[in-house]
């Protein structure tokens, strides 16, 4: 069966330094892949390359059997969406953020859908008009993640989205991830340092000094 994403000998060099070397693995449809590694190991670079925000310097990456270079970057990024660690929110209100995905598609903002999305992540529907400056760290992260799924992507890459959050907020984010994967059929690529997330990972990929050191599947 053809994998959703295939990486073959992916490498990245910058200013004469090797950041990533010969990374190869595949991601199946609706899989949850957890990637871990020490700070500076190259995992954020890897997911930025996967989300085409950066270009690899060697190797090949295919998505749905076609090289990612052959996709229109905008269409690809709408299918393979990347959520940043400590995201910055746009504009003034929560609405400004949830409306952005509609604006870029020239579609009218679906207020009902946005309110439902907010309540599903334990935020009140009237949060839509809440100023982003009044949000807690956990609330900011939830709003940022909702931006990525207002239009369901095929793949959602999450870069340490629970870092710095308290246990309650982590649980809410974990529930969001489970729902995205099981109900909305989104393939998840999760970057984490969190021991609990690593322990519960169904598949754990370890990156060390820019190289793939482990790819463990657990059932």
């Amino acid at each position: 069966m053809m994998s959703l994403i295939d990486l073959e000998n992916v490498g990245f060099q910058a200013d004469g330094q090797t950041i990533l070397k010969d990374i190869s693995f595949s991601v199946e449809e609706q899989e949850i892949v957890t990637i871990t590694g020490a700070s500076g190991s190259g995992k954020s670079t890897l997911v930025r390359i996967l989300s085409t925000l950066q270009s690899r310097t060697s190797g090949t990456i295919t998505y749905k059997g076609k090289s990612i270079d052959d996709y229109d970057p905008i269409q690809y990024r709408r299918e393979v969406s990347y959520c940043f660690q400590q995201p910055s929110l746009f504009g003034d209100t929560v609405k400004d953020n949830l409306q952005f995905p509609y604006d870029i598609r020239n579609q009218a903002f679906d207020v009902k859908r946005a309110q439902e999305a907010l309540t599903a992540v334990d935020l009140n529907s009237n949060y839509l008009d809440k100023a982003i400056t009044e949000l807690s760290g956990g609330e900011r992260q939830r709003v940022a993640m909702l931006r990525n799924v207002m239009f369901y992507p095929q793949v959602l890459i999450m870069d340490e989205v629970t870092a710095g959050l308290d246990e309650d907020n982590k649980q809410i984010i974990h529930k969001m991830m489970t729902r995205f994967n099981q109900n909305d059929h989104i393939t998840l690529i999760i970057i984490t340092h969190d021991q609990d997330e690593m322990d519960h990972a169904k598949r754990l990929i370890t990156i060390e000094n820019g190289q793939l050191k482990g790819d463990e599947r657990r059932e």
Partner: protein
Amino acid sequence: MNSSSLQISNTSLILAAGLVLIALYIGYREKLGIDRDMIIGVLRAIVQLYIVGYLLKYVIKVDNIFLTVVLMLIIIFNAGYNAMKRSQGIPNTLWISIGAIFISTGVTVGAMVLTHALKFIPAQMIPITGMMASQSMVAIGLCYRNLNTNFHDERQQVLEKLSLGGNIKQSSMHILRESIKTGMQPTVDSTKTMGIVTLPGMMSGLIFAGIDPVYAIEYQIMITFMLLAATSLGSVMAVYWSYKGFYNREDQLVLPTSAPKKKHH
């Protein structure tokens, strides 16, 4: 016009030059370290202004359309070149700046000529072109500086918008708006304070030359409208043409840098 009141003798000029000594003395006493720059600046100003004075005298005397156009183009090119120097590595800014200044100056001056508010004679075209081009140059320089600062400071927000599937224009729009606003701000501010804080150069010049102040004000109002149009046109064009230089062909954010690259040991 009472032109006799405008006569200035060489003695008066020499006496005025004595005022520079005050500035030099302050610079020396306060150890500002700008004495050399000040002397060079004064000498350059004298030489440049005399050259321009004699050149303008000749061009106005011969009143040739071709020569007038050539001088206008030289002004525009110089303004574009100086605006480019503020771009700190944004690609293609020489031609972008020249194009934006050419169009903004051309549209405003052209409209006034077509409506017979101005005559296509060197005595009017050259100073007016200088005013429009220099204001556009300042606005475009500010736009470039703002683009550079904001693309650096708000890099993550731009990346997030790109990662959500925004195109480069949608992902940069907040920076583009801010930059255009910054470019236009000095002109808007000076418009608001005109007559209260500043008596603009052109209006003062006309009053100096003995023109009825009300007539001078009417001219100044026209110039103010032209400056607003020129800076907004120049800023919009320069920003929309240059922001693409912050991206590569893969729609990835690539920040230009004019700073020398670090050496790796």
